[in-house]
């Protein structure tokens, strides 16, 4: 573990503009997910829908360390990363609604958001299944002599699956430009990590693969940004890193699940909400005089309007045409 990467870096090392932009992105995710929950309750969104509320600092802090030509690949809890990467909220919401205007043309849904031109390599629905894909993207970058990196997001539950270990091993052996980002939100659906993992220190798994690692406070966007910045710089030099970013989801595993219940208490969730990454960032911005409350409120109102517009766009968009059913089963 790199001590430098674990320490929270004071926000003032990040430009005021970037700090404001980080708040904007975190609020966008929060308001987007709140609206998604509403739309789900109304039956506008179907299937599984995994919300990112509570984990916003992870997507925002990590992606702030990327270049536009870098790659991202995610699990099925990827609305946040999609929005931060710049896929318009309209296209993400429309995908959740299953509409033709969605970023996967209505054929992916919440778990399968894609945007090739933004190098957003998907939302993948099988726990841990996409981790080798990240290594493959890194392999292709190295093969072509490029210097892009691939960020790969997964939950702590994915650490128990073989694909994680196979991918980390090959990424280390072949020195692939990948940053493996474990968003440790403590629970795989309703199972606490310590109930099913012999080793609960996720970052320690990196030692098995002779890989650098760091534990990061996932509620501190600046800490996330600093750790990722270092990991990305190392990855560009062919040194992959495993980041364990400790976070918490304030909602249930998916929209079908309760917020709390048999596997965690209401008190625990309430206690964790005191670590709300958005509240922490707004306090910081006020304390540093970067934004006052009026500016924050205005920003929030602007984002509310943007998300309302996304819902309206999704609602009014057409379903895919009937021919879409058999389109893209095979490429030409």
């Amino acid at each position, binding site marked *: 573990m790199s001590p430098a990467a674990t320490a929270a870096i004071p926000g003032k090392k990040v430009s005021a503009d970037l700090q404001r932009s980080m708040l904007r992105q975190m609020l966008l995710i929060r308001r987007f997910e709140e609206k998604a929950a509403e739309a789900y309750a109304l039956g506008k969104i179907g299937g599984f829908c995994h919300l990112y509320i509570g984990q916003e600092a992870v997507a925002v802090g990590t992606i702030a360390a990327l270049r536009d030509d870098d790659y991202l690949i995610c699990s099925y809890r990827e609305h946040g990363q999609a929005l931060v990467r710049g896929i318009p909220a309209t296209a993400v919401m429309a995908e959740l609604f299953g509409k033709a205007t*969605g970023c*996967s043309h209505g054929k992916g849904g919440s778990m399968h958001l894609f945007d090739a031109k933004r190098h957003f390599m998907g939302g993948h629905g*099988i726990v841990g299944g996409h981790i080798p*894909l990240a290594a493959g993207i890194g392999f292709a970058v190295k093969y072509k002599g490029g210097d892009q990196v691939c960020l790969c997001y997964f939950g702590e539950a994915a650490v128990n699956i073989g694909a994680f270990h196979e*991918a980390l*091993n*090959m990424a280390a052996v072949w020195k692939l430009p990948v940053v493996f980002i474990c968003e440790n939100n403590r629970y795989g659906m309703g199972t606490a990590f310590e109930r099913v993992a012999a080793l609960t220190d996720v970052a320690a798994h990196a030692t098995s693969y002779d890989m650098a690692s760091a534990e990061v406070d996932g509620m501190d966007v600046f800490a996330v940004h600093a750790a990722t910045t270092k990991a990305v710089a190392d990855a560009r030099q062919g040194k992959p890193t495993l980041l364990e970013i400790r976070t918490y989801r304030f909602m249930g595993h998916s929209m079908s699940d309760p917020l709390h219940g048999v596997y965690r208490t209401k008190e625990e969730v309430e206690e964790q909400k005191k670590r709300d990454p958005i509240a922490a960032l707004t306090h910081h911005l006020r304390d540093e005089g970067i934004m006052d409350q009026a500016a924050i409120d205005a920003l929030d109102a602007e984002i509310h309007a943007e998300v309302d517009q996304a819902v309206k766009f999704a609602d009014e968009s057409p379903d895919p045409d009937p021919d879409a059913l058999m389109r893209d089963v095979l490429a030409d």
Partner: protein
Amino acid sequence: MPTLTYRDALNQALREEMQRDPNVFLMGEEVGLYQGAYKVSRGLLEEFGPQRVVDTPIAELGFAGIGVGAAMAGLRPVVEFMTWNFAILALDQIVNSAAKMLYMSGGQFPMPLVFRGPNGAALQLGAQHSQAWESWLAHIPGLKVVAPATPADAKGLLKAAIRDNNPVIVLEGEMLYNTKGEVPEGELVIPIGQADVKRPGNDVTIICHSKTVSVALKAADQLQEAGISAEVVDLRSIRPLDEAAVIASVTKTNRCVVVEEGWHHCGVGAQVVDIIQRDAFDHLDAPVQRVTQVDAPMPYNKVLERAAKSTPEKVVAAARRVLYLD
């Protein structure tokens, strides 16, 4: 026309495609330094270097996924499995990642990659190393599945697979690597989805693919001695399947036997029979018969193993049944 082994025909296909397109690379267990478990990749490491001929750890799920990721980022991977028995560990990547990526991304991510390796039983390798997986793989929309029987088909279909913008499963015959056949010189690309009549005939159609082509041809020889003219139709491609070729032959002979290496239940032959009953029902003079491995794991014992497999004798017996000779 030069005569090549099936192994060397595959090697030629890989070499020519890697020479043609720098984005084509080969990865798998023992493909480089060791020259391939079945020597299909002999000489490729020397010619193309370790960046393009990549030895992997024994981690089928992992390196199949690396192939998928590399294809997403613009390469054209050829992923070799030492045998398809081991590839079952990689099914999540083949089925959930490769086969669905184009569709679930709304057409954004084509998957130009090949998964290849030996399929089916060899001799006395026991239950876990003696399996034919085509009906599993051909079930999946988004995949193409080919199973060449001859050196020429092996070369032409592997080249077509590498050039295809879809994930193509190439099922090679473990018992076929040493077999020889004429392979045309120069560019040889065989379109995927076209069956081939390996022997014309009039009295009964024998539909087969991969290793069972030789089984069917031997059966046809034996039938010929009894004055029966059998037409041997090699499917070559299981998905897409050349329905027109099947119908054309059955329409001509009015009788049909379908042979495969795999198990009976939900096998490739079941799909072929479905096509025949639907589109050639009025042409049939007898119910279609199937010859398959018996519905049991492959035994080690040589006598039991032979009893389990599709053999020329079983095909002859089935042909005689559809001709109402027995």
